[in-house]
């Protein structure tokens, strides 16, 4: 990753005094020791890519590219290293830090944003690939003075504890209700040829790409159901 320290604290909550990279090496070393005996202790000081595909010393110069994004209705032009993910462009270049970096590998959903109206993991797309796209982040959904109904519902139902996953949860939940309205089926849709309904089972399944380490799932579900119920009536 282009900046391994950025936002990595979420992987390390409770170990704030630990450098995330050292922590990672420590884990690997410990496991290697358990698996293969003392010989593996050398892993801690071995090159990072002992069996990697590339020579870690050969670092080519960055390639820069111009990107235009329409973020929350505003057109922004950036010059970015081609390696910059949409997530890093939002947070580091545009300082829209509402979108969070959790795992940085598409597993946790903290970075969920809407691109051209569809939810995606901002960590798994490059900014250059989104040239010309319309991006909606949590900052474009509502403000403290003017909350979106979904944000208000999360507050009303206490749909978070630490709040780190919440921007992703809210972006995802808006997309979930939109996907149901568009008739997109899910794994739990019983009848593939009928329109799906915003039942609790459907919402649970469709929200499975957003992890909440505090375990606020029941209240997140209640918040989304509240908004879905309001939409239906």
């Amino acid at each position, binding site marked *: 990753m282009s900046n391994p320290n950025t936002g990595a604290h979420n992987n390390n909550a409770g170990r704030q005094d630990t450098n995330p990279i050292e922590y990672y090496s420590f884990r*690997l070393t410990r496991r290697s020791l358990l698996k293969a005996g003392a010989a593996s202790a050398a892993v801690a000081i071995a090159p990072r890519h002992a069996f990697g595909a590339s020579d870690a010393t050969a670092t080519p110069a960055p390639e820069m590219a111009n990107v235009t994004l329409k973020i929350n209705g505003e057109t922004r032009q950036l010059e970015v290293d081609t*390696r910059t993910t949409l997530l890093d462009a939002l947070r580091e270049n545009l300082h829209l830090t509402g979108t969070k970096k959790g795992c940085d590998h*598409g597993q946790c959903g903290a970075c969920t944003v809407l691109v051209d109206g569809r939810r995606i993991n901002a960590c798994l797309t490059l900014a250059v690939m989104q040239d010309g796209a319309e991006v909606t982040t949590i900052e474009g959904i509502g403000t403290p003075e003017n909350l979106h109904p979904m944000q208000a519902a999360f507050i009303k139902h206490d749909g978070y504890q630490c709040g780190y996953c919440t921007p992703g949860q809210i972006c*995802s939940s808006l997309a979930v209700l939109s996907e149901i309205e568009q008739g997109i089926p*899910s794994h739990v849709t019983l009848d593939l040829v009928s329109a799906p309904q915003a039942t609790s089972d459907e919402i649970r399944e469709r929200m499975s790409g957003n992890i909440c380490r505090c375990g606020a799932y029941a209240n997140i579900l209640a918040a989304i159901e509240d908004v879905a119920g309001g939409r239906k009536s």
Partner: protein
Amino acid sequence: MKAFTYERVKTPAEAATSAQKKTGAKFIAGGTNLLDLMKLEIETPTHLIDVNGLALDKIEPTPDGGLRIGALVRNTDLAADARVRRDYAVLSRALLAGASGQLRNQATTAGNLLQRTRCPYFYDTHQPCNKRLPGSGCAALNGFSRQHAVVGGSESCIATHPSDMAVAMRLLDAVIETVDPNGFERKIPVADFWPAPGNTPHQETVLNAGELITAVTLPAPLGGTHIYRKVRDRASYAFALVSVAAVVQKDGSGRVALGGVAHKPWRLEEADAQLTNGSQSVYERLFASAHPTPENEFKLLLAKRTLASVLTEARG
């Protein structure tokens, strides 16, 4: 992540030509697997060819009653297509059983077929892996192999292909269409797409350098009852331990393909022929050459019981 140059291309031929000209080039479409691997420096392309601008995002009927799915059709759109839901339900079901809503919105049909294994030793650059670094060895053989292949593997590699979609594509006898840098087009049956790992597990598909997938074609609908049953450690958003895709006709004949057990979707015609003789006969044919590790032996029993359950359900 290693630095790379980046270009957008307008036609499949342009993409394939560019890939041939630049060593270390890779195509990128959804990017959900490639970027993950680039961050870990398991994939280190020096040049990315963004193929998202190619007009390969349509699902069109074919003259013989099938469907031609563009390589760039997103997993969400393929699963939600009314024709797929009606005539190829097993494909919709398989797609919807995979990944998360966010990932399905980005991931493409061709990219899904080309995704790499999720073997933890492939992902761990401190460990030997014959896929990642040919000749370095396989840490999975004597490692934690609960998730790994029970059939079709070799002494060099016991990785599984992680796709759900591919299992349904194999069941439906889908055909992959490609174009190469010389403009030559060819059709590859999904059945022939992933060679056995043997002692060259890094050669994961039969694609040549610079060859680009343009579409995946489904033959005319089979009718029958379509089922995709995925058994996994969580109810959602997890890779299969075992999955079973089935199309079963009223007379009990049909076909089955399994995911999570091999380097490719696992289907044998001789096993299909046993469908009217009950699931035990099907299971015995499918796994006659099984070679599990002590850690993943359970997959055989799981596969047997999942097959039995699916075939019982199919017969109503």
